[in-house]
């Protein structure tokens, strides 16, 4: 997998379900507050954006080129109950 930046993986060849699995596996290994970024296609962006933002992740999307987007996911740090 190659991206514009060598350290950001390009997941545009993955299907939506496998992309979700791959991202969840990466996020599992990443501490809360640390972002996980990757390049995806337009249709993949739609698949990621809503489900992850609904389940405790901050999702930011930047257009990389015509059909590719740089997506960044950060697990929100749980707020302390006072």
């Amino acid at each position: 997998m190659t991206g514009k930046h060598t350290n950001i993986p390009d997941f545009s060849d993955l299907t939506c379900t496998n992309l979700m699995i791959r991202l969840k596996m990466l996020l599992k290994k990443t501490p809360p507050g640390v972002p996980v970024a990757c390049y995806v296609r337009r249709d993949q962006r739609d698949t990621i954006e809503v489900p992850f933002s609904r389940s405790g992740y901050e999702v930011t999307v930047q257009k990389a080129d015509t059909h590719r987007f740089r997506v960044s996911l950060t697990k929100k740090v749980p707020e302390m109950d006072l």
Partner: protein
Amino acid sequence: MNPHFFLLGGSLSQERLAWIEECLKFYFVRLKPEDLLHHTKSHEGVFTFLLTGDALYSLHEPDKARTWEIILALPSVQIICDRQELALRGISVEGLKMKHPDQVLDHNRLGVGGQASFWNDVAKIARQHEQPVPSTIGYLQLDSPYMHRSSLSAVKCLTAALEVHASVEFYAYLDGVHCGHHGQNPTEFDNIGSSLEEICEKAAKRGLSCQMIACSRCAAARGYNTWDDGQGQIVSTCTIKPYRIRNLNEMIDRFAKNHIILGENVASIQMKKDGQTSSFPLEEPGRSPPVTVLITTTPYGTERAFGGVSFAIACAAQGIPTQVIFIEDGVYALAGSHTQETDARLFNLQEVIDAVAGSRNFELFAFQPSLHQRALTKNPKMNAVLDIDMAELGQLLFYPPRGLQSGHRRLIIF
């Protein structure tokens, strides 16, 4: 009342038959004790077992036949056998029929053309369920044609569905995508590709809808995807005309509807109370039938286990309440600690399970009796997979999720 039904076409192990038996006992003891006390018998079974293919051997093998006897002793259980498949295999069910004449049926329903077919019985049951007119019947195909007779079942099933004036949908997943390869030319078998095309033509002539969706991941792996526009539209030059290769999510959209979806080994568990009528629109939230995926195969020998988990993840992501139960050989996915080289492309199923556990609409279970039978213990890291015993399996199958309005639960055996 519409029946719960199991459509079983694959080889039926004693282990599978045993947990089915226990689930039925759970149902009658916990949910319908009055039926046990009074032993009410109705002409229409509360549980209907539709047996075809190699599942029919279970009626002949002594140990399994004994389990069937116990199942048939429960109230309102009915077995409908595929007479053509019985004859092909030279299996007789006369002994069982003599003991249970009203419950074991091996004469199949006549179709419009006057020919009897097991699939007419299946279509009638699938068509009976609460759904708007015109009705729809779907079929999930996991296996390739010719190597597996289930592809012929799919064709017969969808043909019978048209006879009862139902629109038809064919979902090709895993090796099932091969059913739509163009230019099939078998000399010793019905041509599955041509038959699927004929089904679409017949549907059009009758003013019925016909959709054939193949999973894009499965199709890409098998060399079908000729051109991909990067936005979900895939064109293939090697499939039959009605085939559409689409993202799995598009197939799952169809599972979010309320129609009956059949397959080689599936069940439909009714969830509506007697007498309750529903006027909910199909798309209303909470209306999607919950899906229970049973993972019954070892994790890496075939694509089935990963395919089942992947399918379940996609269902949950689409908002369908989804349970995955690791049962029979499926429990090998949970035992030991699975490791592989870091750059391997194959998913480590335990890592997948660990990563997706806790997702919305998604629950994971390990069937303890299957672990015990294999002298296995669950990997302690798989703590998101909850242990269940026989009674809890019954609860999972027969108790509807809270707030759910759907008429039935889909049970799909991978």
